[in-house]
């Protein structure tokens, strides 16, 4: 190995060998990065949505934006009713109540919520893929959805501004999923097939699959109305302006908009309602007692089902109103 080469040969050989090695490292990295994620829930209608492994994180945004999951995007395009918002919407609107509603009304729904995300990314996603749903339901926890300094996560910014590296990044994540699907079974290698905290997502309707997570249970009561978010005092006008622009954009597409507020600690129904009133959008808020979260923040499965069932019941008049326009 101590054979000397000329500096010129060294330069070209390093470059050449580095290029040759790239595919091997790609596979290695794909497997290494997904190794902390739970591999137990893959199916033809599921993909891994989010994993709390340190090296994996979210897959959902690139799945729809690029898209690395074209079948999921096709289902989004076919849906008449889109649910958007953050993880609270992701968890609360992932149950039979929505399926039942779609069956009864003939309106296909799609849960297009993204963890921690705000309106800019959603707007870009809608424009990029020419989505024209009949109605969008927006979950406003308080102010974050329309608060740009907090509302655009780093992964979404990367997707919107650096598409080529993002494409590679999401393809590597997707490759990791394919490797897990291929090699993970009960006796699969532990470095690749762990039981880390992971949420899956259904391709056909965007529902989050999280019931398998060990800590998901009806655990914590919800405080009715916590203190108002501080940004509401300091950035109120900017937030309302952002909301107005978004709603106008939707109206230009012929899409009706409804706001709601999914209960959880740190959410603020009064602020959500104030935004709805300020921009002239219907606000649908089921008033239910006894709802519980599994982590102080997100509705647990049974509570989510109750909330969603009541929500779609209250939504029906607005659907009729929207259809008659």
């Amino acid at each position, binding site marked *: 190995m101590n054979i000397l080469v000329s500096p010129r040969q060294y330069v070209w050989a*390093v*470059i050449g*060998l580095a290029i*040759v090695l790239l595919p091997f490292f790609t596979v290695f*990295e794909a497997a290494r990065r997904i190794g902390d994620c739970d591999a137990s829930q893959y199916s033809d209608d599921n993909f891994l949505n989010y994993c709390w492994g340190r090296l994996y994180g979210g897959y959902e945004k690139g799945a729809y934006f690029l898209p690395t999951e074209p079948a999921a995007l096709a289902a989004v395009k076919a849906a008449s009713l889109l649910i958007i918002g953050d993880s609270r919407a992701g968890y609360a609107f992932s149950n039979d109540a929505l399926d039942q509603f779609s069956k009864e009304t003939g309106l296909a729904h799609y849960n297009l919520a993204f963890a921690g995300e705000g309106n800019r990314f959603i707007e870009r996603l809608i424009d990029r893929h020419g989505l024209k749903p009949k109605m969008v339901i927006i979950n406003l926890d308080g102010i974050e959805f329309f608060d740009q300094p907090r509302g655009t996560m780093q992964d979404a910014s*990367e997707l919107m501004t*650096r598409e080529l590296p993002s494409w*590679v990044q999401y393809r*590597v994540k997707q490759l990791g999923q394919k490797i897990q699907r291929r090699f993970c079974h009960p006796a699969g290698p532990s470095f690749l097939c762990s039981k880390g905290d992971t949420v899956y997502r259904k391709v056909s309707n965007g529902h989050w699959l999280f019931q398998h997570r060990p800590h998901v249970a009806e655990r914590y009561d919800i405080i009715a109305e916590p203190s108002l978010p501080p940004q509401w005092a300091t950035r109120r006008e900017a937030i309302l302006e952002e909301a107005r622009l978004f709603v106008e954009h939707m109206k230009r597409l012929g899409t009706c908009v409804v706001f709601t507020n999914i209960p959880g600690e740190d959410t603020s129904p009064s602020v959500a309602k104030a935004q709805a009133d300020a921009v002239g959008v219907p606000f649908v808020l089921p008033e239910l007692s006894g709802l519980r979260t599994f982590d102080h923040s997100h509705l647990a499965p049974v509570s989510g089902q109750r909330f969603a069932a009541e929500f779609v019941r209250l939504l029906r008049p607005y659907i009729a109103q929207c259809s008659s326009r």
Partner: protein
Amino acid sequence: MLFNSPEFIFIFLPAVLLLFHGLRVGGRPVAALWALLVASTFFYGWWNPVYLALIGLSIVGNLAVSGLIAAAPKGSVTRKAIVTSGVAANLLVLAYFKYIGFLLSIVTGISGTESPELHVALPLAISFFTFTQISYLLDVHAERTKVDNPLSYALFVVFFPHLIAGPIVHHRELAEQFVPATHKPMDWNDFAVGMTLFAGGLFKKVAIADYASTFVGPVYLNATLGRPIDFIGAWGGALAYSFQLYFDFSGYSDMALGLALLFGIRLPINFLSPYKAASLIDFWRRWHITLSQFLRDYLYVPLGGNRHGRARELFAVTVTMFLGGLWHGAGWTFVLWGLGHGVLLIVNHLWRVVANRRAIRLPSIVGWALTFLAVTVLWVVFRASDLTAAGNMLRAMADPRHVLIPTALEAHMGAFSDVFKYWGWRFDDNRPFFSVQQMVFLSGCFFIVLALPNLYEFLAGFRPALETEKFAVKASRMMWRPSLAWLVLFAVMLSYASLGTMITASEFLYFRF
């Protein structure tokens, strides 16, 4: 554009290298320099073209001022007035863009009024190109360098390998290399060494620093939010940040020097195994060397340095480190960090006096341990989002009664688990911030920074930087040569790190300063 971004590695860099060397070898040296200037401007403007006007005005203004300085009689009041005005103008621009928000927050904090919302973005690299040009004005004034022509001066300021995060270069070091670099035949040795430095630096950044950040973020987030952090988790986070910053800045510095060498230019060494330092004084001779030299030459020495008695020296150290802290960022954490280093440097100087008088010699391991401990604790203040978060971290690091251990380890601990429980430690999976992975990672980092030679030592026989002899860079026994073994090693590093740039592109920490 970041050195560790795919657009830089796969598009910008190959294109500029081809253009520069093509023109150069084709007998068009001036065009090669213009190409390098245009490419460097494009590199800077990629971030936000609006600020090209700022850096352009700054270059034109400083070049004009240098002409006035040179034209004024030596030692005259006019000459002093011109250089003072020039330096002040540079500092005012820096103060406006970097410190206006901080200053206003202090004023409004004192007066109790509401802080106005400012929309002043911090232009990329403003601290670096301001200091570079201040040093030029002062060097012209002291006749250490001559007034340059516009092309060479503009290239001296914007030359992309050093523009964004240093090293802070002196005009005489860099500008005199431009013309020879365009006239000499293709030097494949320089190219091979440059590529090796670049590959090594990229690997440090992508494979080590970015990985370390995954251990850092969650702990400091908890500190910011006031959530509990246990003793081991806090130390794990603090150590991980020490290594993140080390490999981030070391990687950046290697890449900067390597890139310059690809164009036949040598930059000064900026980073020389600082965690091997056995005293804080030694640490500052190894960490961000060019900034330390700038502060020493243009601040510490003019303040009196060590020529006017002990009290004046201590004053000069304190002010220098205070301003050095502030240079890194407009915030109380940076002020406290700088002052902390200032105070400890004073202690270090006083200790030296006492130790010399009484002929005390501490084992170097003790000096090393104290230095590393001080540096790591002060990095906590540097990294924390605010003083409250810093306080939360430091309190957790000082409370050994609160320890969480992953439950998976309990079965392997035997009787020790009972001992730990007796101490009040808990086996709990509820967000313990320390893992076996992290322990292995930190051990590996200690090994690399303490036991291995640095890249300049590996490359010492090939003069990878300016004045390597000044730093007594010792040639390693495992000297780099263009051999098959080194070729494979650096190809692996380059390939793995290049892939990493596409999977996780993150900013260099020093880009913010």
